[in-house]
């Protein structure tokens, strides 16, 4: 079996590889948590790529119901068709709209299903999917048929920790927490994304990046995705290295900081710190 490994574009640590391969082998869902911007969603894309399966994405919102992932029964259009005397009205299956999981179960070849940000939904959402994810089957009341997965899909679930997930749900998953990459891994990641970046620019930018992350009291610490956006901007602007270089102690607000700091309190905090540092110098 072709396992999942780090690719040129996606650097996976060994523990992540083990967790993914365990979940693929045992055909159980993998729950991925971690700081925003550490590549949880991208992971599903990479797994699909590595295994050569198509990816079906189900993005969960606060209003999403578990049922919507299975199917929805459009009673309103059936009522309307009944009124208009449409022939279609006699077959109830014309009004069943298939959801993402149905799509995945019905596929002729195995697929990867991404259930993104499962914690955004109602607190009962994971509980409503227990049986479906365990047995990979569900029952359609309207047509009285049972939909069974032809091939058990690889299920990747991501969570941002906004809500606690129920124990019964957790018990059925493998779990992986993506730690924030250390400097060495980060260099690899940068290299993987921008192979032709100037060495000195990358080094200075990483210095600034880790310095920013260490500023106490930041509301949202910049993560990998912010770093990559920022580097892209720096490259497009063709920023000279000197603009990034600041001496050891002194804190200056980095150029194009809008890509790194995402709310005005953080920018204010940074400006204040930079001001204090200048005055102290």
């Amino acid at each position, binding site marked *: 079996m072709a396992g999942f490994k780090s690719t040129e574009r996606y650097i996976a640590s060994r523990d992540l590889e083990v967790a993914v391969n*365990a979940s693929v082998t*045992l055909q159980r869902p993998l729950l991925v948590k971690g700081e925003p911007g550490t590549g949880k969603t991208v992971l599903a894309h990479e797994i699909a790529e590595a295994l050569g399966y198509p990816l079906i994405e189900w993005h969960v919102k606060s209003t999403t119901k578990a049922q919507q992932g299975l199917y929805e029964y459009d009673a309103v259009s059936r009522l309307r068709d009944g*009124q208009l005397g449409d022939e279609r009205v006699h077959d109830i299956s014309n009004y069943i709209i298939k959801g993402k999981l149905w799509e995945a179960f019905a596929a002729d070849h195995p697929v990867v299903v991404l259930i993104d940000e499962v914690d955004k939904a109602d607190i009962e959402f994971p509980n409503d999917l227990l049986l479906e994810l365990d047995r990979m089957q569900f029952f359609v009341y309207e047509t009285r048929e049972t939909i069974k997965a032809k091939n058990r899909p690889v299920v990747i679930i991501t969570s941002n920790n906004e809500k*606690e*997930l129920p124990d019964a749900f957790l*018990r059925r998953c493998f779990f992986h*927490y993506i730690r924030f990459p250390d400097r060495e891994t980060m260099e690899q990641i940068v290299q993987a994304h921008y192979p032709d970046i100037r060495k000195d620019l990358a080094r200075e930018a990483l210095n600034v990046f880790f310095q920013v992350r260490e500023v106490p009291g930041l509301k949202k610490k910049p993560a990998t995705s912010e770093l990559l956006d920022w580097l892209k901007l720096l490259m497009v602007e063709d920023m000279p290295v000197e603009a990034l270089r600041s001496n050891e102690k002194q804190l200056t607000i980095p150029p194009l900081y809008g890509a790194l700091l995402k709310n005005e309190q953080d920018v204010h905090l940074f400006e204040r710190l930079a001001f204090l540092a200048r005055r102290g110098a």
Partner: protein
Amino acid sequence: MFTHLILGLRSAGLPASITEYLTLMGAMKAGVADYSVDDFYYLARATLVKDERHLDKFDRVFAACFKGLEPPEGVKVEDLPVEWLKKLAEKMLTPEEIQKLESLGGFDAIMDRLKQLLEEQKGRHQGGNKWIGTAGTSPFGAYGYNPEGVRIGQDKSRNRTAVKVWDKREFKDLDDTIELGTRGMKVALRRLRRFAREGAATELDISDTIRSTAKNAGLLDIKMVAERHNNVKVLLLLDIGGSMDDHVKATEELFSAARSEFKHLEHYYFHNFPYERLWKHNRRRHEETIPTWQVLRTYGPDYKLVIVSDGAMSPYEITMAGGSVEHWNEEAGTVWLERLQRQYKHNAWINPTPQRSWGHVRSIGMISELMEGRMYPLSVNGIDAMTKELSR
């Protein structure tokens, strides 16, 4: 095969179940971890741990179970930032001891002694609520990595006297993760739920549709309604530190139950009595406080106010301006309590001390009077009575 691992995890308070154990066995059989200790470690972790808060605990149990095997990469004590250990060393060892150890073997010797001490501590403080080893939530990850970042006390100035430093206890933020024993409270709190239809109309209202279709001489007239949501709003003020230390566990349980039960739950901390400032994170209570006025402005009168405090204090702290033990309060506690009560018509006070001892403490009687008797013990029955009162 690895039963001692699972038993060790369970006794360390990590909720690993038989299902997960069998999954691990299945994965081993399927050859996911091929004869590599590291891979086995990663596999066991992915199977048995379902919450990053438990990772550290898992690492410690794993290390204890498989002592003598090669350790997984990167989990050596030496890899921890030196400052944490230094600070910890200062806390746990006397200066004389440090000097002696330094003369014996320098840094390594100190670390060894520290490790030993920590292990002893863990045994002794099992189930305690201090930051060292509360049944395994110790922030000090001698054997592991703790993704939350390990905090060993804040930097504090050294020229304070010993007593003052003690007063500035580093209160740990209440952990709302305690699950054991919260079910009863959850069921009791459920009574507070109040469903209301809010937001966009997305559900088909069958009875209204039938009615209006009939009115419409059989021509279909579809009516939609918004979905039902639980819209009860709760503002929770938690007393922390001082005499409340004895009740941390019970308060955590309450907090945990409330957290999962209400969508609109706002919580703030205070010390002894709510005055003009509250705070949201205990760790940063000295840097980040919020004026109580702002809280009053932010959360409207539709919130229900629940104050959790043992109410054990000197009467001056309640009635006098400047009575607070920590700072100079311009206005007396009674003034602030009255303001809170005026804003939040539905309010209650939960007292974690046993009800029979309330009569012995004068301040409790005073508060109970101020609350017009709406003081309830922190028990399932007490919460039940409180929800009845609050949902009137």
